[in-house]
């Protein structure tokens, strides 16, 4: 891969970048759980308008969307002919990028799933 190209095409892709989207899901999930558990246990009630939660959720979705978009662009970098299953650097990159994109899709849905209870349930019972 040449070093030229747009900034997001130059980003280095590794096993660590592969797990960014699900790691964001995990962070959001853990924060949601801790926030609910601690506010119920310590304050005895759930925040009636969870602004912090809304901001956090939007932020998580944006970050997952961004990593998905970068992965989408990188999965389309021109190189070897299809089916892109050769032992070349570009095919390895395209594979990791595509997997990241798929994980971003799953993580996006996962964050939405986590957000739903806050819409429907507003108390600590």
């Amino acid at each position, binding site marked *: 891969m040449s070093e030229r190209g747009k900034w997001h095409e130059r980003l280095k892709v590794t096993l660590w970048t592969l797990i960014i989207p699900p790691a964001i899901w995990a962070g959001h999930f853990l924060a949601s759980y801790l926030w609910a558990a601690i506010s119920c246990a310590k304050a005895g009630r759930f925040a009636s308008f969870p602004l912090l939660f809304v901001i956090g959720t939007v932020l998580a979705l944006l970050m997952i969307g961004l990593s998905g978009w970068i992965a989408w662009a990188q999965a389309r970098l021109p190189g070897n002919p299809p089916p892109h299953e050769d032992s070349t650097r570009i095919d390895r990159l395209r594979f990791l990028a595509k997997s990241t994109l798929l994980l971003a899709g799953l993580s996006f849905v*996962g964050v939405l799933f986590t957000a739903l*209870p806050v819409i429907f349930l507003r108390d600590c019972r």
Partner: protein
Amino acid sequence: MSLHDQDDPALRAAQEERLRAVWAPPRGIFLRWTDCNNNRVGVWYVLTAFGFMLFAGVLALIMRTQLAVPDNDLVGPGTFNQLFTLHGSMMMFLFAVPMFEAVSIILLPQLLGARDLPFPRLSAFGYWSFLIGGLFVGGSIFFNAAPDGGWFMYPPLTTRTDLSGLGADIWMLGLSFIEVSSVAAAVELIVGVLKCRPPGMRLNLMPLYAWYILVVAVMILFAFPPLIAGDILFEMERLLDWPFFDARRGGDPLLWQHLFWIFGHPEVYIIFLPSIALFAMLVPTFANRHLLGYPWIVLAAVGTAFLSFGLWVHHMFTTGLPKISLAFFSAASEAVAIPTGVQIFVFIATLWAGRVTWSTPLLYATGSLAIFVIGGLTGVMVAVAPFDWQAHDSYFVVAHLHYVLIGGTLMPLFAGLYYYWPLVTGKKLSDRLGRIAFWMLFVGANLTFFPMHLSGLMGMPRRVFTYPAELGLGGLNMASTLGAWLFAAGVAVICVDLSLSPRRVRAVRNPWNAGTLEWLAHPEDEDWGIRSVPLIESRYPIWDQTDFVRKVDEGRFFLPDAEEGRRETIVTSVLDARPLAVIRLGTPSIKPMLTAVALGGVFILTTYHLYWAALVSGVATLAMALWWLWTGTAEIPEKPCKPIGHGLELPLYLSGPSAPGWWAMFITMMADATAFSGLIFGYFFFWTRHADFPPVALADGPGMAWPMLALFLGIASWLLTLGAREVHARKHVDMARLCLLVALLLSLAGIGAGLAGPWTHGMDPQAHSYPAIVWTLAIWAAAHAGVAAIMQGYALARSLAGRMDPVHDADLRNVTVYMHFYALTAIVTYATIGLFPQVT
């Protein structure tokens, strides 16, 4: 050596002779057990796990027979409690998890074109630990001393010594020992997948089995340690009366449930994914085409791994947690159906798009998918909290979990058994017996477990030793019992098939006409793993690369020789599998076995409260481990580089992040840090459960001064070790030794300072959960300071003995990795126990 040389048959024969000599197994009645080659250790491992499975299966049959008719008295309630506890615990800890490790130890080097995994002796150590721990736990039932609190051992039933006997200790300590061996296997497998792939096998060409194993091994690192943390607290309560789970003294039994299920739910996927990974290998073979949707499988494996850590509370839906918390876990439990479904569709699509060869392994694979899907669907049902409130602790759950585990673990393993038997023994199993057994298992499983859905919904609770006839459950239970016997008969048919194998003729090489590397194995098994390490250009090299098998066999790829008489394999880079070095592998040795025996002594002697003997055993373990490391690792090679063919010359020594040892240390410490986070979770869990934590009367301990001093000592020791590494690399060896010596002294001082806080404030750990958890954290950090001192002393000794120099500094670099984690432990521990009471 050029490509040309290999045309000479005499040279090839000489090379083979050298390789054969180097990889020759030790012989003799006793010495043969010192072997550490993956093909032998893996087979012992598989056979042992299979034996435990049969044993646990017999326990289940006794239970089913007891439940066949109402008011039966075949076994009493006490025995029945031991039966179901041991059945569940053995199937999980002594069969499912070890079986995946065992199969991987056999297959992974073959799949990766490596001669062996990077740490063969560690595999052997893991096996012996598993065997000792397994016999200890499993054998307890013959002494009427088996654990009887259910496989998740809920306190206070199990922590109160007046309610449960030695069995609880046997469970905790015996299985903790097994968990150690699982973490050891995880280290081995992760480093194997990341660092020992053949040149050219970039991440996008890795066999999907290896992807699954990588994911599962990482899951073990984050799933098992919370249970180890839980085990520590549990045994502190049972042996020393520290009240972590005793509500009268500020403890909380729910803490155990959290720690157990943070392990317990990922555990389900830890045993499901490797089994399904076998499908990813055999489905393409029998569909006669590449697997469709390779990245989708990676999505499924990685996605499942993450989501599985957000499910644990769905085992605790009826504990009275706030509904909002339940809903988060319910949502994640529903989400995990997505990646699970994706991989099933990938397999179906591949079969649909290919030309299917119907075979016995494929029959098992498709049958198990059908069973698994039923278990998955009831899983979606019980993930809905209101439904779970109705079904919780009933036979409905028993039905669900057995559908999942039989369809998702056991039957896929039988598929793998029929598929890979020729790889291990050179002989095929009988298709006829295999198919007869399959239908017995398939019908038997459904007949056993489908009626349990109904008996559960009709109100039959799990874990009852009998039921009255008036409940009208007799017919359903009789059906389940008949199904269980049919299932057992199916397993017996498989055992017959296996036992007939030695009398059968050898199969041809690669009998299924598969495309992946493991089928290079020859029916007349050689011990060297692979004749030469190939250059990989495809996911299915045997299908796609011209003359591939011949080139491997004739040594036309890399490392076709063992000139120096050493066991070797190639280390490559993580992403692109560029060759980095040749490493020398461990040879057969008694040390792993002795270390396992000594460590086993620590756990087993503690069970019987023989603390002094346990301490002696602990010291012996340490001495053994140091002896093993000193004589077997980070050896300075006789020459810096060696040629591996095709004009390539690779170094014989690596240190730092490119070395397998560095990764092993990093991975081990990830597990250690996760266990530590489980203890920290305990501290803050108590804080959320109490209006005042620390309680006002106890809040003056451990004070701020001692923890802050200990923190300072820990950070200073860490910085000095870092400094030692840097000046050492710049060839100031004496300066580095001085740094290490001072760092060692600071670490020793850190032990005292860490314990002085709770000690000088007279904190009584039996009085309340607060002093108990503070003491536990302080002891944890102090123990890590002790290990830091040992490691610093070890590096110092290596330097003084001339076994470490500025070029060959792997020991020091590995110690530095430990010190990063030690610093983190010190910061979090002392900030928590020293500063947190000040701010609340």
